[in-house]
């Protein structure tokens, strides 16, 4: 990929904390304007990775480039960051908190207040503008912090586990906001341990497990690593057609599940019909990101993320 088109680039990043190697040779390439997800279970090194990319901490070795700057803080005015552990001054009013977060990124306070008021109004929080943060619900405070993250109109937004702690409605609103920003050409980089969010939003992903990148590329590319899955129900329970079922096929009740053979669907269908299977239903499913994640990072990583293993999912 052309380095000129990359919003974020990391090469062989390593971060050592004492005897623990939290990040171990991570390389990433986030294209400008993309929605990019970093997936991994808790403790995989996602947050450390983001902190390294943003320059909050320095790597033990390796290089990173943020919006063309080798020193990430030089790009700070064009970056918005929402950390996993949200933090605002409890005594500050909503409007002042947003303006302050903008001022940290170089936006004049007056303009920050003006834009803050517009953003709050756009998120049904206009009545709360002059109220202190400590009087807000957790979800509202998170929204205020998110608005403070985008108030200075950044080119790159980095969100660490942005969906955690939000109810379904607020998760939907956040997804919509991410899409709106991306539609305006803003690059979105976010970490998550919920595969469904990445699958719905991302064009590209990095799967991180134990501090290492297990996969980096397009979501379709990740899915493409797996063969489509065949779901088959037959009237006959036995017969010559059974020889068409590949080894390693799983059975759940009346249903068989197996990877589509490399020869494709036609020879399979012919063998099943000729063998007298009596096909009741047959569907060929494209594998989801979840399946790709399990295949790439392993079942242990999927369990650590609270995702069911494929057999359990099928059951």
């Amino acid at each position: 990929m052309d380095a000129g088109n990359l919003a974020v680039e990391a090469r062989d990043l390593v971060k050592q904390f004492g005897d623990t190697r939290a990040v171990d040779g991570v390389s990433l390439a986030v294209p400008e304007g993309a929605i990019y997800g970093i997936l991994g279970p808790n403790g995989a090194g996602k947050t450390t990775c983001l902190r390294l990319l943003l320059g909050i901490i320095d790597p033990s070795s390796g290089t990173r480039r943020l919006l063309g700057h080798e020193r990430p803080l030089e790009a700070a005015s064009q970056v918005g960051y929402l950390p996993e552990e949200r933090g605002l001054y409890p005594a500050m009013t909503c409007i002042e908190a947003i303006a302050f977060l903008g001022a940290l990124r170089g936006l004049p306070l007056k303009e920050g207040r003006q834009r803050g008021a517009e953003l709050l109004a756009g998120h049904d929080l206009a009545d709360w503008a002059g109220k202190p943060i400590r009087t807000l619900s957790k979800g509202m405070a998170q929204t205020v912090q998110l608005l403070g993250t985008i108030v200075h109109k950044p080119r790159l937004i980095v969100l660490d586990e942005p969906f955690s702690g939000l109810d379904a409605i607020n998760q939907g609103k956040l997804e919509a906001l991410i899409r709106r920003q991306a539609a305006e050409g803003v690059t979105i980089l976010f970490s998550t341990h919920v595969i469904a969010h990445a699958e719905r939003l991302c064009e590209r992903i990095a799967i991180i497990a134990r501090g290492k990148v297990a996969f980096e590329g397009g979501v379709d590319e990740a899915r493409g690593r797996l063969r489509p899955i065949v779901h088959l129900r037959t009237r006959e329970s036995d017969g010559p057609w059974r020889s068409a079922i590949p080894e390693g096929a799983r059975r759940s009740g009346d249903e068989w599940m197996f990877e589509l053979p490399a020869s494709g669907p036609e020879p399979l269908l012919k063998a099943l019909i000729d063998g007298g299977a009596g096909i009741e239903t047959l569907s060929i499913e494209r594998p989801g990101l979840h399946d790709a994640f399990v295949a790439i990072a392993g079942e242990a990583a999927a369990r650590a993320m609270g995702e069911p293993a494929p057999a359990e999912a099928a059951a």
Partner: protein
Amino acid sequence: MKLARLGRSAYVIGRRDFTATVMSKAFLLFLLGPLFPVLMGAAFGGIGAQIEQEAQKPVVAVIASADEFAQLNRSRDKLSLVVRGERVVALTRADPSASRDQLLKQEKPPVIGVLEGGLDQPRFTGAVLADGPTIHQLHWMLDDARRAKAEPRAPPVAMMVTLTKRSAGSVASARSLTARGGQALLFILTILLAGMLLSQLIEEKSNKVIEILAAAVPVDAIFLGKLFAMLAMSLLGIAVWVAAGAAAIALWTDGGLGNLPEPAVGWPAYLALVPVYFAMSYLLIGAVFLGIGAQASTVREVQTLSMPVTMAQVVLFAFASTGVGNPDGMQAIAAAVFPLSSPFAMIGRAAEVPALWPHLAAFLWQALWVALILRGAASLFRRSVLKSGPAFRWPWQKQRQSAS
């Protein structure tokens, strides 16, 4: 460019901290803080003033012949043997042609009063208490000297006493009080503010705001912003206290501000030096505290870590206060040269010695150390506050690493 960005970022952080602190209820308490010692002082003021006025070793200039002075001095020695352990007024002989008013302004030694008229018609003029030990002791000495002179049965002669508001001795006494007061003010303020600074940092570390700050601005800017915000807040506090104190003195005391004993450098210079030395002291100690605070993640850890620094500061304060009363002595000079005690020592000196040039030298010397300590503490802060930067290594560890 880089420096401008650092300054801008530090300003954003500092402005937030300053506004948040000044607009809080805690700041009102901070402003009211000095009232407590003032009230205590008022309660014990009468006793304190009496003790202070007589506590300094009084020197009385005697305008008399050599014989009479020698006789008086012998009587003084006898009195010293009788009242061992008490301060006995010291006598210094003045030329018979000397002017009383000139003598009352004499600073070396600081004269508290003048005795003239010989043994037969003694007249005392000075800034002492009418019924204080100085007058009683002089009476005893005069009686004893007259008896010894050849009139063993001579009746006591009344000494005519004229009290003045000031003498060089009383001014010296008041100046040393001003010196100690200035040092105590600096010490208390520095300790108080360094503690407040630490609490703020810990609060930010615990409510995770620090990560948002560190992602947006250089860590050095956070360090400087916090340090200077608290400095600005305290200077505002000092301005309020000085104005309120001056107004109170002008309103409630006879003679107003003009009645206050003037520090040696004069009030305008002294009032200018107080915030300067406070700023130096605070920046030196505050930077160390902030560097320490970055290591800790809980209030308990902070208390454990800051205890040795606080104790060290008490020692520095005590060290600086030993020079009061003898500003050209070895201890005073040593305290003025040692960077961490220098602001305390120099504010004491400003009250007692009129020369201004040592303050310029001290300011430059302290500024150099402020720069060095700020640099070191900022580096410590940067490494520790978010566990950023390469881990600390001793020189031999670095050598081993480069060898491998």
